[in-house]
């Protein structure tokens, strides 16, 4: 049906994806209750059985209840600046998620140190491409290659890699992925692929 609606601008087909988006959002809202209950169940079990680290489980439960109660009681405008929910978001949630994200900077360095080795030709290519892009994209690259004429410096090389070989690879991957998705979708629609459903 969604295939059809792409081609037909007519009611009800032009409404179908709207419906789906709305319904999906509503289903999600109900499903998260299941998820949250599951998390609470596990944490409470941990506390009752006094498993190692149950103290942290208490922290999980308390912080979960805290933000949920505040958020639900503050009504529709819970997100506006000045509410307690906003305070928790800005001063607790944001530092945590930003730092978790930032910690990747360290991991990326140690992973490249440990895992990116010129094991064979393919791996070497990967390394070289990474090298040129990394160095060519920051001012330091042009300082190093400053002796070269304008247009043949590291920053130009980095741009060239990005625009040409990189695009080719991305394109092949993209076409492949799209065909894979088409075929998977067809299998699902035709009912050949039903591993995700326990019978009908």
């Amino acid at each position, binding site marked *: 049906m969604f295939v*059809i609606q792409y081609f037909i601008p007519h*009611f009800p087909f032009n409404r179908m994806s709207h419906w789906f988006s709305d319904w999906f959002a509503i289903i999600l809202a109900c499903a998260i209750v299941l998820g949250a209950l*599951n998390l609470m169940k596990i944490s409470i079990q941990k506390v009752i059985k006094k498993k190692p680290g149950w103290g942290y489980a208490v922290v999980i439960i308390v912080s979960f209840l805290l933000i949920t109660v505040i958020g639900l009681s503050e009504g529709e405008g819970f997100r506006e600046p000045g509410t307690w929910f906003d305070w928790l978001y800005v001063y607790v949630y944001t530092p945590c998620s930003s730092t978790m994200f930032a910690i990747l900077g360290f991991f990326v360095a140690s992973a490249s140190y440990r895992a990116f080795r010129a094991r064979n030709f393919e791996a070497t290519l990967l390394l070289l491409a990474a090298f040129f892009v990394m160095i060519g994209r920051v001012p330091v690259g042009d300082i190093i290659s400053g002796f070269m004429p304008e247009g043949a410096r590291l920053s130009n090389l980095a741009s060239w890699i990005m625009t040409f070989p990189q695009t080719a*690879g991305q394109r092949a991957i993209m076409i492949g992925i799209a065909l*894979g998705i*088409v*075929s998977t979708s067809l299998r699902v629609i035709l009912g050949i692929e039903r591993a995700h*459903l326990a*019978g009908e």
Partner: protein
Amino acid sequence: MPSHPTTSRPSHPAMLLILFTFFLLPCIVLAQTEVGQTNIEGTPIVPDSEQIVAAPVTSLIAADHKYDDGEMIELSWVPSIDDQLVDGKVIGYKVYRLEDDGEPQMITELAPGSNAYNDQSVERGKLYSYFVSALSSNAETPSVRTAPIEPQREWLNYELLNVLIMALVLGGAVIYFIETARRGKKLFVRKIAGLEAVDEAIGRATEMGRPILFIPGILDMDDVQTLAALTILGRIARIIADYDTKIFMPVSRSLVMTAGRETIKASYQAAGRPDAYSDDMVTYITDEQFGYVAAVDGIMVRERPATVFLLGAFFAESLILAETGNSVGAIQIAGTARPAQLPFFIAACDFTLIGEELFAASAYLSGEPKQMGSLKGQDVGKAIAMAAILIGILTVTIGDSWDVEWIQNITTGLTEIFSTK
């Protein structure tokens, strides 16, 4: 009753019929479009002599916007000859509309130099006519009025006809090969390294008596990668049930939790071991990306799984997960269609399914001819793509360089076939 996940359904010809009916019928039923002409005289306002009068706009045409649900009328005109950048008298235009022969209403004001406007505040079933006034600093000169026009709804977007045909060709190829395979014809599919290792990886976990961790990415059920991951999970869980190994699957979406439970349960039932299944195999943690990762890392360090599957849609967390998995010494089989995350999987995991291979995996693992058939269909798509690229580049290069007309025509044709506008 729960059925075996691989049971066939004898309804494909019927499905085909339905598909084609829905696709083709609208093609046959042609839509009519009408173009209103400028034929009714407007009543020009006789200006005072002291007023600066601009010449009216000419050739005003109102036409229905094609291929929509009757929501738009396109207006175009030739600007007033007094509309010039230097010493122009025109300071703007006003567009008026008459609804069902009612009073004229101004619907918009436009800057000088405008020559078109799309009126999107129209409704089907009403007649509209328009006129445009050229504004000078102290006078207004209306143009002639257009004939009344009704916005039309069309049944099929012809501009997308080529997309439809290509989609049909591809879909047809997939279905054709599925049918061929069903009739028992052997189809060859090459080996996919990561998938050959699945059995071995599960066997290893069994020998070591350690659990298997399955991470289905962090997106919800509305992403095809998650679907693909769950179909693979179905196959894997079947093998796991046979081996009697433990599987653990922390997820970051409640819907995936439910779907994952259903999948594993179905596989255990199919393997004849429904008693060994428990809901605790799949747990929800949090929707938040890094909160989830922090928890999964903890699980990896504590449970020390022998095998980790990282299949689905991954974002920044791919590196953290793969690194931690690597540090606890697990065999890791990863796969995603997100190119940004693939390098990390390639570096830190033992086997990686790249892009399309992820979607091919469940078909491949099933070993069923029907499913293999769909892979063949994908290959047809690739073959068409490759041929189009090859022919296209050759013809466009030759055609442009030596000005050979018939070769240029081929190029134009090809471009039209693949255009989506």
